[in-house]
């Protein structure tokens, strides 16, 4: 029996690799099994995730086989496919996104999309590439959502600044934040982005930009001042 230790894991992977080399897992005897008996991914001697240094040859073949079964409507393949995909997609989103919660959400959403569309998959298509393309798209969506949320960061900062303040001070802070948002809304999206990036850099969240960035920032701030003056008549 192959233990669930690292050594055992590698042993199991080598066994399956060898089995595939001599004619595929379906036809070869693996780990003492009689020849002809298929090796199921749910086999306890084949611990999941089946990864050593990332998606290797075994992962691709196993995943391709599972996707073929899913495309054929075999519901029993859902769980092993999920178990096989989850660590890979989670690692991928973890590398693409900074926050662990975002990475977790993106991985889950990506896998839901994968399973929703797996019936349509073309058998000749590389399953891993397809899954990672969906995961990459999901990461992009999460980043965009986060960027949109970033525009509202000012509101949260205002709320924090207002902690411990009197109700009058809170009201003033709220009105100022509202006025700033209105003035910002008159700028073009790229100008808004430059100002927010500069604000983030000031708070040490992002690296400062170069000369071109500073010029764009200067122009954006001039436009913001103009918008503020037009609305409120003072700087």
């Amino acid at each position, binding site marked *: 029996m192959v233990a669930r230790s690292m050594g055992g894991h590698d042993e199991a992977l080598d066994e399956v690799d060898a089995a595939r080399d001599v004619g595929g897992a379906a036809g070869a005897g693996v780990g003492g099994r009689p020849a002809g008996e298929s090796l199921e991914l749910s086999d306890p001697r084949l611990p999941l995730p089946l990864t050593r240094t990332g998606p290797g040859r075994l992962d691709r073949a196993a995943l391709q086989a599972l996707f073929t079964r*899913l495309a*054929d*409507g075999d519901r029993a393949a859902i769980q092993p496919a999920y178990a096989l995909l*989850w660590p890979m997609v989670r690692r991928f989103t973890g590398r693409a996104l900074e926050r662990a919660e975002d990475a977790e959400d993106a991985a889950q959403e990506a896998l839901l999309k994968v*399973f*929703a*569309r797996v*019936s*349509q998959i073309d058998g000749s298509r590389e399953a891993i590439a397809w899954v990672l393309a969906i995961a990459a798209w999901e990461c992009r969506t999460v980043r965009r959502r986060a960027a949109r949320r970033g525009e509202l960061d000012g509101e949260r900062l205002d709320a924090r600044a207002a902690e411990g303040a009197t109700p009058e001070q809170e009201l003033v802070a709220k009105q100022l934040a509202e006025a700033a948002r209105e003035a910002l809304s008159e700028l073009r999206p790229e100008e808004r982005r430059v100002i927010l990036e500069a604000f983030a850099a000031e708070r040490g969240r992002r690296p400062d930009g170069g000369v071109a960035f500073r010029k764009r920032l200067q122009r954006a701030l001039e436009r913001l001042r103009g918008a503020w003056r037009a609305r409120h008549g003072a700087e």
Partner: protein
Amino acid sequence: MAPSEMTIDRARRAFERGRMRWALGVGAYVVPMAVVSVVACGRPWVSAANGLLLWALCALGRWRGGRFAAPIGWGLAAGAAALALPLLFHAHGLPCADGACCRGSIPYCWGGGALAGLVVALRAISIREGRASFLVYGCTVAALAGSLGCVVGGLMGLGGLAAGLLLGSAPVVAWGALRTAAR
């Protein structure tokens, strides 16, 4: 973190939703066939009901997958021939009034049915597993698709189609059974 049972359940539900959408996509083939039948065969309600039944059967088979999904393409293709023959007869201006159409279209329905039965049966005996279910499901789909055209001949046309299917598939099935027994 390993995936929880809840996330796998969500994946299962997503799979079922996606599969149902994909299964209903067979309407891209079935609906045009039904529209042709509604327009050309003079019995729009029968054609529409028949088309809906065919769509439901095909969608169900695709959704279920496996041996139920495989015969659908073959059944539809074979049934398309049975649909086309009586419609060609109808389109060539041959008499189709006062019951003459019924009599005139029967050979076409019979021929179309025989061709469909032959195609489905030949495919069925060439597969290793699930021959019987392939044959039954494929012939049912072919019969419903063919009846979209044979509705032009009324009950006699449908009877001709059914007889054609039976006579087209029976010899092939018998030959396949004999060949299997001989091995």
